[in-house]
C-alpha cells in the first residue's frame, strides 16, 4: 500500500547529517539501555523486597522466571503439554479473534466513514453498543454459543471490533475532500479510489485503533478462559490460584505480561513498516 501514496515523502527517520551508520548504532544502543536499565532496577528492587519478605504471596521474580521457563520448556523436552495445549490455543484464539474483529471493524467503519447518511444513522447504535463493557456480554455469548472455541473467538472479535470501527470511521470520514476529488478528476475507479486513496489516508487512525484492539484481544481471551474453559493461559491461572500454587500463578501472569508486550512490539513493527511514509503517524499514541 505504501507504493500507492501520491507524494513520496522522505523517510522521517533518516538522519539528516553524515556518519549515519555510526550514529544510528549508538542511538539504538542508548534506546536499548533506556529500556534495560529501568527494568533491571525494578527487577532488582523487587527481588530484594521479595527475598527479605516472608509473605508467601510474593515470590522473587527470578524464581518466577525460572519456573515459567520450566513450565513452558520442561526438563529435557522440547516443549511441555502446557505449551501446546494451553499457550498455543490462547495465542491462536487471540489472533483469530483480533483478525476477524479488525476486518469487521474496518469494513463497517469504512462504510460509515464514506457515507454521511450511513454514519449519521448508525452512530447512536454504535455509540450504545460500544458503551456496553465488552466483558459484560460474555455471559450472553456463553448462553448463545455455548462454551466452545467459536464462542471465545466470536466474543474476542466482538469486543475488539469497536475500537477499530470507531477509528476507521473517523479516519475515513475526516479525509480531506480534495484528495477524493483528485481521484475523481483523474477518473480513478471507485474501487481503486478506496484502496489507493481512502484507506491509506485513513491508515494512521486505523492503526491507532488496531493498537488498542490488540491489547484488548489478549485481555478478552483471558477473561473468556476464566469462565467455563478447559484450556488456555487464563484457565491455568485460575487453576493455579484455586490450588494455591502461587509460583505457578505468578509464572502465568508473567507469561501474559510478556505476550502483551510481544503483541505490542509486533504491531509497532507493522506500523513502522506500513506507515513509514506518514510523518505524523507516530506523533500520538
Amino acid at each position, binding site marked *: 500500500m505504501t507504493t500507492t501514496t501520491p507524494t513520496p515523502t522522505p523517510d522521517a527517520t533518516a538522519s539528516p547529517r553524515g556518519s549515519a551508520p555510526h550514529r544510528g548504532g549508538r542511538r539504538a544502543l542508548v534506546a536499548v539501555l533506556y529500556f534495560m536499565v529501568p527494568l533491571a532496577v525494578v527487577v532488582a528492587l523487587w527481588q530484594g523486597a521479595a527475598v527479605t519478605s516472608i509473605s508467601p504471596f510474593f515470590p522473587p521474580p527470578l524464581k518466577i522466571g525460572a519456573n515459567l521457563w520450566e513450565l513452558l520448556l520442561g526438563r529435557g523436552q522440547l516443549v511441555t503439554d502446557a505449551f501446546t495445549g494451553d499457550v498455543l490455543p490462547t495465542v491462536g484464539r487471540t489472533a483469530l479473534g483480533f483478525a476477524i474483529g479488525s476486518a469487521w471493524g474496518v469494513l463497517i467503519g469504512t462504510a460509515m466513514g464514506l457515507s454521511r447518511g450511513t454514519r449519521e444513522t448508525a452512530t447512536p447504535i454504535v455509540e450504545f453498543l460500544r458503551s456496553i463493557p465488552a466483558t459484560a456480554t460474555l455471559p450472553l455469548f*456463553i448462553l448463545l454459543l455455548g462454551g466452545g472455541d467459536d464462542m471465545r473467538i466470536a466474543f474476542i472479535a466482538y469486543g475488539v471490533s469497536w475500537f477499530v470501527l470507531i477509528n476507521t470511521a473517523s479516519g475515513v470520514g475526516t479525509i480531506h475532500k480534495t484528495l477524493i476529488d483528485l481521484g475523481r478528476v483523474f477518473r480513478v475507479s471507485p474501487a481503486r479510489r478506496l484502496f489507493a486513496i481512502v484507506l491509506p489516508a485513513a491508515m494512521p487512525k486505523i492503526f491507532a485503533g488496531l493498537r488498542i484492539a490488540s491489547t484488548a484481544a489478549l485481555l478478552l481471551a483471558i477473561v473468556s478462559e476464566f469462565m467455563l474453559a478447559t484450556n488456555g493461559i487464563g484457565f491455568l491461572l485460575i487453576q493455579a490460584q484455586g490450588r494455591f500454587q502461587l509460583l505457578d500463578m505468578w509464572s502465568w501472569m508473567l507469561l501474559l505480561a510478556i505476550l502483551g508486550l510481544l503483541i505490542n512490539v509486533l504491531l509497532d513493527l507493522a506500523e513502522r513498516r506500513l506507515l513509514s511514509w506518514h510523518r505524523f503517524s507516530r506523533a500520538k499514541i
Partner: protein
Amino acid sequence: MDTVSMATAALARPRRRRRIALWRGLAGLAGLVIVLEIISRAGIVNRAFLPPFSTVVVEAVQLWGDPVFRADVGSTLLTYLLGMLIAAAIAVPLGILFGLFAPVYRAASALVELMRPIPPVALVPLVLLVLGSGLEMKLAIAVFAAVWPIMFNTLYGVHDVDPYAKEMARSFGVSAFGVIRRVVIPSAAPFVMTGVRIASSISLIVVITVELIAGGAQGLGAFISRERAYGDAEAYLAVLAATVTAGILGLLINLAIGAVERRFFGWDATAREGA
C-alpha cells in the same frame, strides 16, 4: 442573494445539518428496535434467546425497583469513580514530575511502555488471594488498569510542551514552579484528558470483569454472574436487562467525559483526536 442573507444561510446550515443527523440517528435506532422486535415475535430466532426488545426494556426498568440491583450498580459506579480518582492522583503528579526532565522522561516512558500492555485482569487471581473479594480488591485492579494510560499521556503531554513557551515565561521572570503551573500544566492538560478518556473505558470494563469473575463480589458484573447461574428464561432476561443497564452506564460516562472535553479543551483539536 445579498451578503447578509448568505451569512445567515451559512449560519443556519450547521443547525440544519445537526437536525438531519438527529433524525437519521433516531430513525436508525427505531429501525433496529423494530427489526429486533419483529424477529423475536415472529419466531425467526428462538424467543428464549432473543426476547422481544420491549420486554428487555420493561425488565430493565423493573430491575431499578430492586434495591439489591441498585446497590450492585452503586457499587460498580463507586469502584469506578474511586479507581479513576486514585489513578489520576497517582499518575498525573508523577507524570508531570517525570516528564519535565528528558532522561527521566525516557526511562519512565520505557517503564510505562512495559507495564501498559499487561492485561489488568491477569492480576485478578492474585489480588483475590491477597485482598479478598471486597471493594479493595476491585479498586486495586481498577487503579492498576487506569494508571498507565493516564501516566503515558501525561508524560507525553509534559514532554511535548513548547520549549520556547517555557523559555519565554522564564525570561519574563516567572519562577520554576510558576512555569509548571502556568505553561506546562495548561498545555499538557488536553493530553491528560485523552489519557483519562482511555483509562475510563478500560477501567469500567475491568471493574465489571472483576465482579463477573470474583465469586462473592458485589456489583453489576456480580449481578449478571449470579443471574446467569440460575439458567432459566427469567434469569436470562435479567442478564440481558443488566447488560443493557451496563451499556447505559457506559454511555453516560462517555457522554460526561465528552462534555468535559468539549467544555474545557474545545480549543485543542488533539483533545478530540486519537484513540
